[in-house]
């Protein structure tokens, strides 16, 4: 292992002495570091030093040295999350609570660029120090909401701030909004893809409360929400997930939502129809609910293309089938899966395409050691030949996508964190990968070539070549709390292994050909960038 560094650790006493000598020692030196929060972004690892109200960004040079960048995040850290593509890190802060002086900070949502040259982006001021943050999968919007962790004297649980991340802060950005409530409170948020609604293409934010839905047009959030109650008889129903479609291919008027209800065999379909003449409403579309019966409580929903046209797929574990519902007629057909699968996802493109343009779905279970390929091109007309089941040694707790060029692969993670399977969606094979340590964490490199596995708190690290499934085992000097594959500034890749528990050390390895010989270790990285 290379020990060319630990330079920051060596400088620490000097820095301390200098600061003490000046008599203006930064209060941060009197603050115990932590808790730390770390993330892997596209071009750097990020360590949020919350007590110092900063983000330490760790881009990697071609020689595996770090070029740390310290960025202020504001005081009163609440939460942070990266966008799905890793290009940005969103940091929510409460500011100073209470605000006593003009110099005190107010709540805000900060954006940090996550590339190889990290930089502060916009800071969106917020009205209230609340802690819930949900980010659009496309990275265009975020919503800030009151979370159970918020303990202000008086709170409005239905108060939201919708942030358009593509626009600079302005009087109307963020957009404050209080959901119309019939007693419900937000539980989760779903950002839809672009839907072709009567007034044109737009995106929606669907708020799942504990009893109904709120639908917000992200193109005009100030218009408020449309409340869709999910029960007309007063009985309690709780939405737990939704599926979204913009309608069958080639159509522009079939936008629809499907709402999964907790322990309920009924699914509420919501057509987003034009407003009828004379209808006095605030929005240019009219959610029109309908009910379809799935035969049993579904565990997962998705709109899928089948040989019979577009269907709503509902996975019904109690019936061990996938129920395919025609949204227009409510007619159902079932695909017997032979097992109680709980989750499914559409994998058509990764699987090389489906029959007659129909989808291919992958179903899995946390209880049963198998996965099923469902060929939806034969699901309605001939359901008996639609399913191919692969037996595994363990059930599946998590499925990790693999980027191109190996998008045909999925990395399956068993609940025990010791069994992994590399699933080839084209060959329909499942190659087992075993770890000697329970709770092993896996991640997939951004270039899709490798997977990384490590045991939190341990020193074992492995690179798995997704082409030949060869594991390269490495043992670091320090325990690993996080391992992040990032792009280097020279275009290569690096793995940044972070040790939060010891001296906040970092080990940087080459992401393609990792070796302990070329690795660079840093200790006490938090100290190095203090000014």
């Amino acid at each position, binding site marked *: 292992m290379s020990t060319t560094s630990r330079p920051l650790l060596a400088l620490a006493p000097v820095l301390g002495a200098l600061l003490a000598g000046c008599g203006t020692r930064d209060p941060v030196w009197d603050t115990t570091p932590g808790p730390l929060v770390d993330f892997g972004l596209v071009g750097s690892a990020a360590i949020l030093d919350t007590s110092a109200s900063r983000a330490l960004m760790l881009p990697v040079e071609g020689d595996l040295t770090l070029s740390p960048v310290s960025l202020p995040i504001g005081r009163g850290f609440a939460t942070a999350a990266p966008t799905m593509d890793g290009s940005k890190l969103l940091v929510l802060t409460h500011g100073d609570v209470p605000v006593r002086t003009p110099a005190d900070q107010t709540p805000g949502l900060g954006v940090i660029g996550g590339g190889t040259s990290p930089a502060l982006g916009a800071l969106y001021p917020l009205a209230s120090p609340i802690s819930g943050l949900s980010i659009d999968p496309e990275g265009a919007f975020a919503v800030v909401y009151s979370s159970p962790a918020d303990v202000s004297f008086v709170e409005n649980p239905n108060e939201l701030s919708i942030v358009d991340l593509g626009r600079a802060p302005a009087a109307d950005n963020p957009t404050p909004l209080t959901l119309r409530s019939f007693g419900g409170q937000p539980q989760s948020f779903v950002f839809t893809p672009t839907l072709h609604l009567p007034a044109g293409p737009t995106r929606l934010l669907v708020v799942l409360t504990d009893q109904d839905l709120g639908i917000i047009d992200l193109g005009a959030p100030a218009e408020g929400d*449309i*409340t869709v109650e999910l029960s007309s008889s007063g009985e309690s129903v709780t939405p737990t997930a939704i599926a979204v479609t913009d309608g069958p291919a080639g159509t522009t008027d079939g936008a629809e939502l499907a709402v999964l209800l907790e322990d309920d065999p009924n699914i509420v379909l919501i057509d987003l129809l034009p407003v009828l003449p004379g209808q006095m*409403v*605030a929005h240019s579309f009219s*959610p*029109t609910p309908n009910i379809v019966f799935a035969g049993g409580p579904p565990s997962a929903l998705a709109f899928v293309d089948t040989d019979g046209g577009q269907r709503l797929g509902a996975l019904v574990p109690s019936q061990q089938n996938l129920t395919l519902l025609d949204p227009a007629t*409510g007619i159902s057909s079932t695909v017997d899966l032979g097992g109680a699968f709980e989750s499914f996802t559409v994998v058509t493109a990764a699987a090389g395409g489906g029959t007659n343009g129909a989808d291919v779905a992958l179903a899995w279970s946390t209880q049963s050691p198998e996965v099923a390929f469902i060929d939806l091109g034969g699901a309605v007309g001939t359901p008996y030949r639609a399913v191919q089941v692969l037996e595994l040694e363990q059930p599946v707790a998590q499925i990790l996508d693999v980027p191109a060029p190996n998008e045909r692969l999925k990395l399956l993670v068993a609940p025990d964190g010791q069994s992994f399977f590399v699933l080839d969606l084209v060959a329909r094979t499942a190659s087992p990968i075993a770890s000697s340590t329970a709770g092993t964490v896996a991640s997939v490199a951004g270039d899709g070539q490798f997977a990384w596995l490590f045991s939190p708190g341990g020193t074992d690290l492995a690179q798995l070549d997704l082409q030949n499934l060869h594991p390269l085992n490495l043992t670091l000097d320090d325990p690993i709390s996080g391992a992040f594959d990032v792009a280097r500034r020279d275009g290569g890749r690096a793995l940044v292994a972070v040790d939060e528990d010891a001296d906040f050390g970092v080990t940087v390895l080459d992401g393609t050909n990792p070796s302990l010989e070329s690795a660079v270790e840093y200790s006490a990285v938090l100290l190095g960038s203090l000014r």
Partner: protein
Amino acid sequence: MPGERRWHGSCDVRPETVHLPGGVPSFLMTSPRRNDAGARPPSLRGRLRRRGLLPLLGAGLAVSAAAAACGSSSANDDGSGIPVPGDYAGNGGSCEGNTSGGSLAGFDAGVDALPPETDTTSYGAPVATGKYVWIANPSSGRVAYIDATTLQIKLVEAGDGPTYLAAVPDPTDDVAIVLNVLSLDATVLRASASGLTATTLPVPGSGNTWAVSADGHWAIAWTDARRITNPDPVEGYQDIAVLDLTPGSESSVDLTVGYRPVGVGFDTAGGHAYAVTQDGVSVVTLGQPPAVTKNIPLTSNLVDAGATPQVAITQDGAYALVRTDGLSSIDVVSLADGTPTTVPLPAPPTDLALSADGKTAVAVVRDTSQAALLPIPGIVADPSSLTLVTADALIGSVTLASQSSIGFFYTNALPDPVLTVIDTGAAMPVASSILLRAPVFGVFPSPDAGNVVVLHDALTSIGSQFVAAASLVPVALGLPPKIIGLTAPPISVAVAPDGAHALIAAGDDGTGIYELVVASMPSLDVQILPLASLPIAAGVVAGANRGYVAQTYPDGRITFIDFATGEARTLTGFELATEVVDDP
């Protein structure tokens, strides 16, 4: 001789609709024929029993909007049924056809072995007006009305337990009336360009059936005892409520008629209503206020006091025509003074109906396979002035088109595939036969009689594996019929007023097969659509060029079919539609 099995078609106020009871036991009330105990084979014939919709008063009396829409239809007797006007309770009005009794020489043994007749009636089905379909939800106290053009659902609060709906003819608005069985009142729902109004009127005696005058001025709520399981003999169900539906001055009056009415209807002039009961015909004068002004007994030829013959009342309310099982005659009773005129027939008639124009009463004499055409009112002055038309095949039932003098004759007392057609209004009527490919069970003509939907049963007799079948018969064009196999028992048939489309809803909870046949005529194109649950009733919303089929589902379910495109759209959970809040 046991009566011929009888069934009833039904038709909505504007679209023709027929509800068949197969497979919907919870929605049907069944009572065996008194003269046929047991011995019913487990065939469609056995399942598709006569509905409580009853033989209608026929064309002679514009008994209701339904009757007006359906024109005359066949009526037959099961030994206990008196022909009554269309039934609005379950299906928005109906017109019925059925058959009864009699046998052809040489077929006696088979006819004698016929299964018993049964009356059945469906509940909870929607009704259609100009462009709306109305559906009551007894649990929530609301009535959903669906614009069949836009499929937009709206709800209106009714009373407590809104259950029995009827469409009310109106020249400008869409109007329906619902009987609230728990709050003992009725809600008149009027949808106009300015919105919907709901007016509540007391109905102290409650009821389970509506009769509505053809002009929509009057409605009568009454109780059909045949819809009540094991009614106590002391319960006469003699209370009726007469509702004046004049907009802005609605009112109701509670009246008493004879013991256990089986049918209520109106004359075309709107001056009187008639309740056919076991005590005779109770005449209601529709004045201010309405009152029961007399009762005309019909019992002179009754076999026993508990029996009710088949009765048809002429459109002008002048006469009641009475057919009694086992008697070789038709009695024509003056409703002015009760004077009876007996019209002798060659053998006991098995069915009785009045033509659409009210000028001809049609009695079917199965023993001689003849149709007796009685001129109205000439038959009173000259009981021998009838015309007998002999068919080439066995006939025991008649269904008359609602806007034509053409009648369709057949028998379902034994497997017989022949449909006989007679123009009852012709100067020299003749019978022509159409050979179908399976035994006839029921006939549903288009209003102009140009096309006919024929239901078949007893398919095992021809070696078929299908549960049932239907034939589309382009009568006017004289083209060969098209037969369609059904994989579930038919439950409801609807024929569009223009005759261009027909719906056949079929289903069986036992097999889980639910389907809808959408037929185009005269092209005979057929589209078979699966349904999500058991059909209750099919209908046509002429103003929207859509058909519909209501289905059983706790939150309500209805499938609309666009006749122009063939596209089907199912709406489920009507009340959720009002749970969307988007205040401007």
